Structures are given as structure tokens and as C-alpha cells.
């Protein structure tokens, strides 16, 4: 084409040059346009239904069984390739997720000891390699995590699972389809913990010479997806498990491609340019652009709270209830939510309003700067005599939303009622290290609060270990050393309340007391935005850190 143009216009020097340039340019643009219109997903079979997801993680989470990289790792690798004895029910968006039978069809705790849990296993379940799921496989997997002498012991899986197996004292096979697990002490929250332990195939591990490194590339679980290809730090390709034991959860997509895209703007650009169909966590300022391009923005509350955990050490100004209440009343949460593009809801406590554990607190957390000001004056402070507080914050991090501008916003609110706020800014992992240490650690001396986002999907993490006085680090998550004897009594009762309704009631009572005591400064709940291409169908955003990708597909 270019040559033809060249010949026809090759008469006069200047005219030739102009014609050549312009036409060549046009030809180039045409070639470019044709090339650009080539389908990006031409690498896969045309009739295959493919769903491409942009994750925020920089590496594919561990594929051996216990995924790493927090909630996102479990969401995309843990729950796709594997199952637990008890699974989360992620099929509803309108209410908080609850537990439901997984690889166990029923479970019960012994009435006398309250420590021996019996699990009846599901019949007819096979691993991806075709071997049977039995009681032997359950015991083998528990040995993998808990028995360092066993050949299949895997330190990296054990590290990931240690937050779930801490309560386990022993385990035994009763018969081929029944196992008994004994806890160290009565613990009614045990089902939540057992929902975190996944089951890898012993037969596949044997076949691969007992090498977890090889198993990571050719894993075998019981989950709705099977791993087809793993390219470290780049992507994992999963294919549908047509023999999945739960017919309702056989994936709607034939292939699920999970890509690592840690940069938020990269994920947004990839979605807008059609390179992926589904992205995690677009930044709030990208949402209007995504909407105007026809993308679906899905949001929902989930067990997340963006708070300041407060110090109760002897020198902390937050020992005064008036000061804690004033801080909670000083924050314009509606304004902050608007500032975040509407992607947050104002918090009324640790858990969302309407949550089974919300209870009936009498202290209403709202924006009331006048009352905040008068409380501060009662406590002996005011704008002319401000109270100095030092808060530890991070520059970014999982669940931290937009920490720097949000903290600036809140700092103005607090200053207006008589606080003098000093921030000490950390990189995310450094801030987590400060949280793990507790307010009582020497490095945290002088720190009055810590802005570390929190989860409440399980009663231990969300309520019991955050509020009970014996749960200061490293035993639990009571960072500041908060102590309320009434809560301690209720927490002990909740731990042995094996009836879920009774347990919820006790958790609600504890939460009411936490709010009335203004235990922390609660700010907002994240709405966990995700952006989906216009043709993506079937996604139900559960009120959970985990999500179910099996019903999701691209409707071409």
C-alpha cells in the first residue's frame, strides 16, 4: 500500500514529500487501528468463557492450601481451589455472611466437656486429582499444620494457619467419614476458626514426591476451580472444576485469570482498556470516570472499621471518658464520606448498625461539635488550651483506605474542638509492627492512638480479643490495654455460648458497652468498591472479606 502511494505521487519533489508523509501516516494509522482492534484475549479458545480479574496483590498468593496475603489471598486462591470443613455462605449481599456446611455436613460439640467437636464429613467428595476426601485426609492436613515431626509439615502453611489452629489441642479419626477435634478449652467461636483451615490432597503430595514447591505449581484441593497455570508475580489461570461437589457452585466461567496489579491506576487503566473484566479496589477519584465509561461499581458494607485504637496507658489523655466521647463527636463523618466519593459509611461503633452484634448502645456516635466542645471544656481543655495527642498513622496499607487525606480531614475536626493533634507517620508494615507490640511497649511510649483499620468477621478478632482486658498483645488485639470488668465477664460467657443466637446476644451486650465507653474513636466503614466491566454478570457482593467468584461470568 505504501509503495503504491509512493509511485503515484513521485513526480514533484515537494509534492511527493508531502503526499508521502501524509499518506504514509494515514496508512500507518490504519494499520495501527486494525492491529488495535484485534481481540486481546485471542490466546484462549473462542468458545471458552473467560473472566479476567485484576488483584491488588503483587504476587500470586500461596497455592498449596493456606493462602497468604490476607483476605485477598484467601478470596482468590484459598476459596477457589480449596474448601474448609465449614464454609462461609457468600451468596447474599443484604445481610452479614454466616457459616454453612462445607466439607463437613454437620458438627456438634460434646455437652459434658464442651471441648470435643465431632465433624461428619461429606460423602462422595474428590480432590482435583481424583482421590477421595476422607477422615484420613483431614487428619493428614491437620498434621501438615500442627505436627512438626510429620513428613508433610509445611512451615509456610503453618504460619498462615496459626491464627486458626491456636485453639486445637488434639484430633482423631473416628471412622472413615468422621473426625473429632478437641479444643484446649471450651470455645464457642471454634467454627469460625475451623472455617479458615483448608484441605490439600495427600495423594497429589505423595505423587509429587512430597515436595510442597511442586505442589504449589500442581495443587489439588476440592474447590470449585482447579489451577491450570501459575506464573509467579504475574498471574494464575484457574479452570472450572466440573465435578465440584456443590452443583449450585459449579463456576459459570470456564477459566478464571487472576492477574497481579498492585498499582491502582494500572488496574483502572486495564479495565478501561478492556484488558481485564473485574478489578479490586479502584481509587475513589477514578470512580466517576469508570462510571461514565459504563463500568459497574459494586459496593457493600463488610466487616471493616476505620478507627483510632486508643491507649489506656497511665499517661494517655484518653483515660478520660469525656475526652474519648468528645473525639468521637467531633468528626464530620458524612463530610468525610463525601470526600471519599461516597465510598464509606459513617460508623456508629465497631460493627455496622443492623449487625447482629451491634446491640443497643446509649451513646450515639454522630457529628456534634458543640457537645464535643463542651465535653472538652468539662475535661479542662478547649481551643485556647488544646489537649496534645499523638496518633500513629500509615501512608497506605490493606484496609487503610486513603489514610493521609483522611487523617488531615479529621485533624481539622479535632482541632476545632480543642485537640492539638500530632501525627507520627509510618510505612504500613512498620505501623503493624507498632500495633503488634501494644501501647505498653517502650517504642510506643507517648503514642495516644493508632490508626489501624480493623476487621470483625469473627467474634474473636472483632470483639472479644479487642475488648477483653486479658487480651493485650501478644495474646489478643487489645492494643491500648482497655479494661472493663463487665466486658470481661460477658466475654467469658460469649466464649462458651454454643447457641449462636445466645452468642450474638452476648456479643451485642459487649458491643453496647464498648460504644458507651467510647473505647476507640470509630470513623467510617469502607464500602469495598470493585469495578466490573459492563458485561460482567452474576457477582453478588457478600458482606464479607471473602467473595464467591463461581457465579461470575462475562456475557458476550
Amino acid at each position: 500500500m505504501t509503495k503504491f502511494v509512493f509511485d503515484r505521487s513521485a513526480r514533484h519533489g515537494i509534492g511527493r514529500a508531502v503526499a508521502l508523509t501524509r499518506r504514509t501516516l494515514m496508512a500507518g494509522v490504519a494499520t495501527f487501528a486494525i492491529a488495535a482492534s484485534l481481540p486481546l484475549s485471542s490466546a484462549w479458545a473462542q468458545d471458552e468463557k473467560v473472566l479476567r480479574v485484576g488483584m491488588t496483590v503483587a504476587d500470586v498468593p500461596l497455592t498449596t492450601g493456606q493462602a497468604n496475603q490476607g483476605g485477598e489471598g484467601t478470596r482468590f486462591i484459598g476459596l477457589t481451589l480449596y474448601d474448609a470443613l465449614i464454609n462461609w455462605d457468600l451468596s447474599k449481599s443484604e445481610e452479614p455472611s454466616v457459616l454453612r456446611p462445607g466439607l463437613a455436613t454437620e458438627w456438634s460439640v460434646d455437652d459434658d466437656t464442651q471441648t470435643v467437636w465431632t465433624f461428619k464429613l461429606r460423602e462422595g467428595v474428590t480432590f482435583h486429582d481424583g482421590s477421595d476426601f476422607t477422615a484420613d485426609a483431614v487428619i493428614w492436613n491437620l498434621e501438615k499444620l500442627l505436627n512438626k515431626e510429620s513428613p508433610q509439615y509445611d512451615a509456610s502453611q503453618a504460619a498462615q494457619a496459626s491464627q486458626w489452629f491456636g485453639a486445637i489441642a488434639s484430633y482423631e479419626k473416628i471412622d472413615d467419614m468422621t473426625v473429632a477435634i478437641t479444643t484446649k478449652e471450651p470455645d464457642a467461636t471454634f467454627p469460625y476458626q475451623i472455617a479458615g483451615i483448608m484441605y490439600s490432597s495427600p495423594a497429589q503430595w505423595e505423587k509429587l514426591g512430597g515436595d510442597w514447591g511442586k505442589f504449589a505449581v500442581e495443587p489439588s484441593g476440592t474447590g470449585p476451580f482447579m489451577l491450570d497455570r501459575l506464573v509467579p508475580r504475574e498471574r494464575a489461570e484457574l479452570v472450572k472444576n466440573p465435578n465440584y461437589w456443590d452443583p449450585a457452585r459449579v463456576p459459570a466461567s470456564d477459566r478464571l485469570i487472576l492477574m497481579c496489579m498492585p498499582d491502582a491506576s494500572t488496574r483502572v487503566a486495564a479495565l478501561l482498556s478492556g484488558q481485564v473484566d473485574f478489578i479490586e479496589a479502584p481509587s475513589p477519584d477514578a470512580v466517576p470516570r469508570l462510571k461514565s465509561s459504563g463500568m459497574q461499581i459494586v459496593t457493600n458494607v463488610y466487616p471493616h472499621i476505620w478507627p483510632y485504637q486508643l491507649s489506656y496507658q497511665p499517661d494517655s489523655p484518653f483515660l478520660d471518658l469525656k475526652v474519648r466521647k468528645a473525639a468521637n463527636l467531633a468528626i464530620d463523618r458524612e463530610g468525610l464520606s463525601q470526600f471519599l466519593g461516597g465510598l464509606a459509611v459513617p460508623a456508629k461503633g465497631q460493627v455496622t448498625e443492623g449487625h447482629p452484634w451491634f446491640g443497643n448502645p446509649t451513646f450515639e456516635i454522630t457529628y456534634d461539635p458543640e457537645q464535643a466542645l463542651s465535653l472538652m471544656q468539662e475535661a479542662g481543655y478547649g481551643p485556647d488550651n488544646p489537649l496534645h495527642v499523638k496518633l500513629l498513622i500509615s501512608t497506605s496499607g490493606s484496609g487503610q483506605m486513603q489514610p493521609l487525606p483522611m487523617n488531615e480531614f479529621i485533624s481539622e475536626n479535632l482541632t476545632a474542638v480543642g485537640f492539638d493533634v500530632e501525627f507520627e507517620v509510618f510505612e504500613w508494615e512498620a505501623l503493624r509492627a507498632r500495633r503488634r507490640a501494644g501501647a505498653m511497649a517502650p517504642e510506643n511510649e507517648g503514642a495516644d492512638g493508632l490508626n489501624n483499620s480493623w476487621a470483625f468477621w469473627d467474634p474473636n478478632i472483632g470483639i472479644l480479643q479487642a475488648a477483653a482486658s486479658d487480651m493485650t498483645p501478644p495474646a489478643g488485639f487489645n492494643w491500648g490495654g482497655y479494661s472493663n470488668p463487665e466486658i470481661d465477664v460477658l466475654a467469658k460467657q460469649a466464649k462458651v455460648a454454643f447457641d449462636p443466637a445466645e452468642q450474638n446476644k452476648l456479643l451485642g451486650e459487649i458491643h453496647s458497652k464498648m460504644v458507651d465507653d467510647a473505647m476507640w474513636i470509630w470513623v467510617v466503614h469502607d464500602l469495598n468498591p470493585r469495578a466490573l466491566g459492563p458485561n460482567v454478570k452474576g457477582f453478588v457482593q457478600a458482606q464479607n472479606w471473602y467473595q464467591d467468584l463461581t457465579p461470575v461470568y462475562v456475557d458476550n
Partner: protein
Amino acid sequence: MILYVIRRLLLAIPIAIGVTIVCFSLIHLAPGDPLSTVLPDNATPEVVEEIRAAYGFDKPLPVQYLVWLGNVVSGDFGLSIQSRRPVLGDIVPAVQNTMILAFAAVLIGFPFGTILGAIAGYSQGSLTDKVVTAISITGVSVPHYWLGMVLVVIFAVNMGALPAMGMGPGGQSDFALNWAHLRHLLLPAITLSVIPAGIIARSVRATIADVRKKDFVSTLRAKGLSPAWVFLHVAKNAAPVVLAVCGLQFAQLLGGSILVETVFSWPGTGFLMNSAIFTRDLPVLQGTILVLSLFFVVINLLVDVLQTVFDPRIRRG
């Protein structure tokens, strides 16, 4: 010549050891625990100690360093803390991917910078010179991650002409010399080439202007040599300096750009280091930095050797 190369190679060993010590110390001085991303939030002290021992972090730092160095010398870069995969298995493909990007950026940036610089050097003080200087200063000054994002917005998001991220269709990293893969290379390569192009343009301009003022150039002109021949002499005399600058720029490109590779999700060394930094994956970080620093040493050596070919005075000196 061979003696010169051997001497330079021997000098590279203490440099490499120095780099490993600095790198190891800096990483351990940074706040935060390397195991904090691996351990669950409520790990008991016993679990923490067990895991620490299993990963080898229970030993004193100098011992950890020596163990690591001993393994590296025997080709074992250790296992990633996060993935428990051999570190070398992650570094090798990342280096390959970065090299693809670096070569593409060289192909775009070096000729562009050299031509611009030569034009400016030959037209010193003129409007052309000022325009070229303005372009090269812009090239040097523009933050390239910003430029990358702007290019993505224009060519990927608004025009839909080029992909926004990844190395190949569907984010695959098996590179091939076809349009489906090359189109993924264009935006990151252009973004990455801007700074070296600017630096090279400025160096070439200054060097050519300098050489042109030399007496021998006046002599050549006086003898009646054609401008093309004079240019050849000027270029040959400017070559060692330009070569040194190009070599350094090339080494820098091979080092990978954390920002550009992250913006384009290009799975090279920069992307690898970014994820290793955020997950505190010390073995990956140490291994990558060591490999890259060795690259610098080797490329500097190559440039030095090449310079002696162009300018024997250096060797004698």
C-alpha cells in the same frame, strides 16, 4: 589489554561485597520485621519463635549475612519468605523481562538522543539548539511514572490503541516478536527512554560543541575536508564520552525502573523489587539488588574496555 581487564575484574569483587554488606545492613535497619507479613496477627510468641527459627532469622545478623553470602557464592540465593520459591527462579525471568524493556528503550532513546544532541551541538546558539535543549531538559526533568500514566490515559484508555499493562495478550509474559506482544512494549519503552534520551542529547551536544572548538577541527577545515569528513572526525573524538554516558544509562535501564514497571505491570526486576519491598521479602530483595549491582559492575567494565578501543590514551593512563 587482558591484564587491564583482569585487574578491573578483580577490583569488581570488593565492590560487589561492599554492595552486599550495604544492602544487607540497610534492609535490616529499616523499621518493621521481615516476618510481619508472613505471621498472622495473633501469633503467640512461641509460634513467632518457631517460625523465626524455621526461616533462619533467629541467628545474629553477621551470622545471617555470612550464611547468605556463602549460599550465594554457591549459586543458592535462598527461598522467598512469601512464596517459599527459590529466589533465583524469580530473578532470572524478571531480569530477562527487564532486559527486553531496556533494549527497546535503548533502541528508541539512544539514537533519538544522539541525533538531537548532534544537531544541537552543530547549531550552537541557534533557535534549533534552544528547541533541542528545551526538549532534552524536559526529557530529563519529567517524572517518568507520570509520563507513563499520561501515555496510558491517551493511548490505552481514550484511544484504546495500545494495552495499558502487561507483557502480552491476557497479561502473559512469554515474549515473542510479533505485533500482539510488541504493542505491549511500546508505551513502557517510550516512557523509559525519555530520561536517557534527554541525558544523552545533553552530553552529545556538550561534547560535540567542545570538540568542534578544538584546533584540529579548524585544521581539517583549512585543509579543505568536506563537512561530512569533518563530522566523522568530530564524532570519533566525541565517541568515548558519549559511550561512557550511554553505558551508564544502559546499566541504569537494566536496573529496571520500579515506578515504570509497576505502572505498566511489567514483570521485570523493578516490579519484583517493588513487591519484595512491600512484603519485606528480604531474600528476594537481597538477591535482586546483588544481581543488579553485578550488572552495573560488568557493564561499567565493558564500557571501560570499549573506551580504550576508541581512545588508547585511557589504557596507557
